[in-house]
């Protein structure tokens, strides 16, 4: 069985064989960025076209900005941690423009709302 100790099985440990491979290296990060649409190339190919050099750095920066990380363009630990977070499998197709710096969005104010 899959191991657990709590009555409600909230501490159920996943099988090592059924765990997602962590994104811990350059190759995995490149695949992540391509898979979820972080390349600026509007027509990514189905085959694994590797992001390198400045293209890679741009993609990393865009990802970092969207996730409120320092936009270093480097695959540092916080960036890799963000890539490893649970997420939906749909690509992120509506990306912020390259030049735009994301600012924390203001809370939406419904029309005519008064405190």
């Amino acid at each position, binding site marked *: 069985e899959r191991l657990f100790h709590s009555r409600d099985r909230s501490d159920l440990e*996943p099988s090592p064989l059924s765990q*997602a491979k962590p994104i811990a290296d350059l190759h995995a990060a490149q695949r992540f960025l391509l898979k979820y*649409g972080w390349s600026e190339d509007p*027509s990514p190919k189905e085959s694994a076209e590797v992001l390198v050099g400045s293209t890679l750095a741009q993609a990393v920066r865009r990802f970092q900005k969207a996730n409120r990380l320092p936009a270093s363009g480097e695959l540092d630990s916080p960036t890799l941690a963000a890539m490893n*977070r649970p*997420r*939906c499998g*749909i690509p992120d197709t509506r990306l912020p423009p390259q030049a735009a710096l994301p600012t924390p969005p203001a809370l939406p104010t*419904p029309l*005519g709302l008064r405190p």
Partner: protein
Amino acid sequence: RARQKRFLQMLLPKPGGQHEGSSDIGPSRAFSKKTLTWRLVGDAYSSQLSVEEQRYIFRLAFRMWSEVTPLDFREDLKGPGTRVDIKLGFGRGRHLGCPRVFDGSGQEFAHAWRLGEIHFDDDEHFTPVSSDTGISLLKVAVHEIGHVLGLPHTYRAGSIMQPNYIPQEPAFELDWSDRKAIQRLYGSCEGSFDTVFDWIRKERNQYGEVRVRFNTYFFRNSWYWLYENRNNRTRYGDPLQILTGWRGIPMQSIDAFVHVWSWGKDERYFFKGNQYWRYDSENDQAHTEDEQGRSYPKLISEGFPGIPSPLDTAFYERRQQLIYFFKESLVFAFDVNQNQVLNSYPKKMSQVFPAIMPQNHPFRNIDSAYYSYAHSSVFFFKGNSYWKVVSDKDRQQNARLPLNGLFPKRSISEKWFDVCDVHPSTLN
């Protein structure tokens, strides 16, 4: 290969940069009909939760979208699978004939096709609504249904459409921006109401002081919504059935509500057909009999002599201590102290409440006349529109406005937001 290509086309930008989700075109609706069917596929249950739990969570997830859109969703257990609009299932690794392989526990937890399929990675630790560990199946389901309906990812804080899973706060609901996003695709909720009114509650604070509060209610057919004016939306989880929330009154199609509230009087009445009921706010149910022992409901003709039935609507004017009853094109002013209709009535509605802009008037058969404490104004509802009655404050600002005039009509959904039907099967 054709299926894989079609799947990727649904997920990835099309060649040339044009995509349904691109900023040039924007997202588009995925469905053109009002009622959509869904099914948890029988050979794709999760191994972690009971089937009943899974179905309950999905039913709730669909209902949450239904509460803010003109769409409603019906679970279809019997029809041919090809006719079901949205199918949901769990799988691991290679699953359900899907070309996109799940990666095991961690990272990708689910994906959705615009064609109406949602797959959940059963290697993830999905948990039911009440749990605070693992990944909330409800939250993931709401997110993926958003994709199926046509919404893309966003990084806006607070949005259900953020790509990453964020452990939910105690109150997980669709916020203002998510509602407007889906309404840009499917429109706002419209529709006439049977009656609209503010309900007064008297409470004592910790110092024993009496405070008066009000709540706004919308009634339509057999259900009702509480409208939270300060939040510009209905209460989460509404609509509810009249039968469960308002005991002792007819369970559907209320004609009118009147609260006669003045010195020495605090009487609340519901009207339907040729009858009326008095409501006991202390005990939260309709009175079964009056002080003389005569039972409710009573005939309108007996309690309000001179008033016809059935009515269109009514409201109480506190300063004049008159109830204005409306039927077809006429309005009757009823003096609650004299217990009779004023001599000069009935009159044409258009005479008592003249149009400010010529011909911009409901003229007859209004759905509801509603005095709003939030807006300190009377509103007439008819269909999808409302007319605001000129108030004293309006006349102070513009003395040329006619007494009790009607401002030009506007859309109800632009002032009271997200008063949406749900499928009747989800009302219980």
